[in-house]
């Protein structure tokens, strides 16, 4: 353990300056987003749009009852459509569509809420065009998602690929530290930096979001035929966790390729190539239909589009969350073992 901690300290000693620069840059971008929101948000802000569409004045009991009655009516229709579809043995996509509709209206009726009190996942995407307290963290996360992955890629590459190119890997390998502990230490350091980056992003975006006001809106989350309301901040935390896993995954892939190929450029190009290849295989083998809204094979999406699966299939978070975590964790563990095996035998 001492050896691992020494490697972590050694890495932080070497890279602190660059990491701090990246964090400062990120902070400046987040603040710019916030300032832009304040400056230009008045014209385009979601809040104003939402206020125009759904005035703040409380809905009358009669209006609410009327809407709920309408949903009850729709539920009956949907149930009838579903029964007919099952009777004629309709394609699974059609069945799924009606099941989902049934679940949706049943949810409104069970909870006594009306649709306009909620933001569905699509509305959440629209929020990124405007500014709203609840939306701001998502705006920041969406803005930073790919830069964060690039940051993770560069960290992974710097862990080994750059060390091979500069020759500094010799200074580490000739030190009295087991080679497997070099990998554990560097992996721990990468995880710490990524955690810190996301923590800074989270604190800043939530803090600034709070200035705009969070409200109490919930997000409708669909998972197969289950539809439920999730507090917007809970959804944000889930996405932060998944972004963290995505970053770990990218950094691990870049680090492993760095050890195998001993070159930073190759360690960047190779994972991107493998990723594009996996997308090609996905489209040929599984097909685009897996992307359709009503028949998502989420496990297939997650496998073939590892990172995209993490970021854009939040609708299924309750059903596939642990699967995504486990799947990526398994890939990272396999990469780590492969890296240790290779690194222990490598002539430097």
């Amino acid at each position, binding site marked *: 353990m001492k*050896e691992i901690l*020494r*490697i972590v*300290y*050694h890495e932080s*000693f*070497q890279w602190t*300056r*660059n990491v701090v620069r990246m964090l400062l840059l990120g902070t400046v971008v987040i603040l710019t987003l916030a300032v832009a929101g304040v400056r230009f948000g008045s014209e385009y802000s979601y809040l104003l749009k939402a206020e125009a569409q759904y005035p703040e004045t409380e809905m009358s009991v009669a209006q609410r009852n009327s809407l709920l009655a309408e949903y009850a009516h729709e539920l009956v229709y949907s149930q009838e459509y579903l029964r007919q579809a099952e009777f004629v043995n309709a394609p699974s996509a059609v069945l799924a569509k009606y099941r989902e509709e049934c679940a949706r209206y049943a949810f409104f009726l069970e909870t006594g809420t009306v649709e306009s009190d909620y933001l569905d996942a699509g509305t959440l995407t629209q929020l990124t065009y405007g500014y709203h307290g609840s939306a701001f963290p998502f705006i920041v996360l969406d803005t930073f998602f790919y830069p964060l992955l690039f940051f993770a890629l560069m960290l992974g590459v710097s862990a080994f690929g750059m060390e091979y190119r*500069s*020759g*500094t890997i*010799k*200074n*580490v*390998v*000739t*030190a*009295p*530290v*087991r080679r497997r502990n070099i990998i554990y230490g560097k992996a721990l350091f990468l995880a710490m930096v990524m955690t810190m980056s996301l923590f800074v992003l989270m604190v800043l975006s939530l803090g600034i979001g709070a200035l705009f006001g969070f409200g109490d809106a919930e997000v409708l989350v669909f998972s197969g035929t289950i539809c439920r309301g999730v507090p917007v901040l809970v959804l944000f935390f889930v996405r932060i966790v998944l972004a963290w896993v995505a970053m770990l995954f990218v950094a691990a892939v870049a680090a492993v390729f760095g050890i195998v190929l001993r070159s930073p450029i190759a360690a960047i190009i190779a994972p991107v190539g493998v990723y594009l290849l996996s997308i090609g295989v996905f489209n040929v083998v599984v097909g685009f239909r897996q992307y359709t809204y009503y028949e998502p094979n989420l496990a297939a999406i997650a496998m073939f589009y590892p990172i995209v699966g993490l970021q854009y299939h939040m609708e299924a978070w309750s059903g596939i969350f642990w699967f995504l975590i486990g799947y990526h964790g398994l890939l990272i563990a396999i990469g780590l073992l492969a890296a240790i095996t290779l690194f222990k*035998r490598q*002539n*430097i």
Partner: protein
Amino acid sequence: MAILEMKHVWKAYDTKVALEDVSFSLEAGEICGLLGMNGAGKSTLMKIVASLSRPTTGTIAVGGIDVTRDYVATNAMIGAMIEAPSFHPELTGDQNLMASAILRPGVTKAQIFAAVETVGLNDMAGIAVKKYSLGMKQRLHFAHAVMAKPKLLLLDEPLSGIDPVAAKRMRNAIHALAAEGAAILVSSHVLREIEHLCPRVCILDRGRIVFDGPIAADTDLEALFLSLVEEGGQAQ
């Protein structure tokens, strides 16, 4: 007491044999020059001792400990200056040494400053390495190798690109370390340097040791080297 002991060491890369049945030992306080043409196996030998590379067969012991079994223990005894100097260009000279010292328990700041002083880099230690000349990087490399007061010092072309003043400082440091009991293996193409520095010489030719012994003050090392290596080369 033998600090370094190699027995029947072979190293092969695919079809090429880099070291062939090398047996060699180095006592405490001894300075040995390692000579050979390009590709003779000098760097390979040093890399195997420093655990940068694994032998195909044979045993290497440093301080009585087998390098392939416990390289953590042997690396703690070794200071190595192998191939080109490699440092983080953004960090200063002393920061680079401190970063390495983190991985070597027991190395104090005083030792780092002493090593920097040994190579005469005091004034430049606070400057980023990217601003260093090749000779300054080489001096920093030497400081890096000696800062932990190693029992075995491996020096691959240590004086290459070094100005005469710094070279003298480094030669003095090598002699001082040997006087304290360190075993020192120095490889070089500059025969004159080896003549000045090393009472003993080992000559490698295509992976094999063709000469290993003391050299007298009146020995013509160049003639000896050429007779062993050129004849071998022609026979090959």
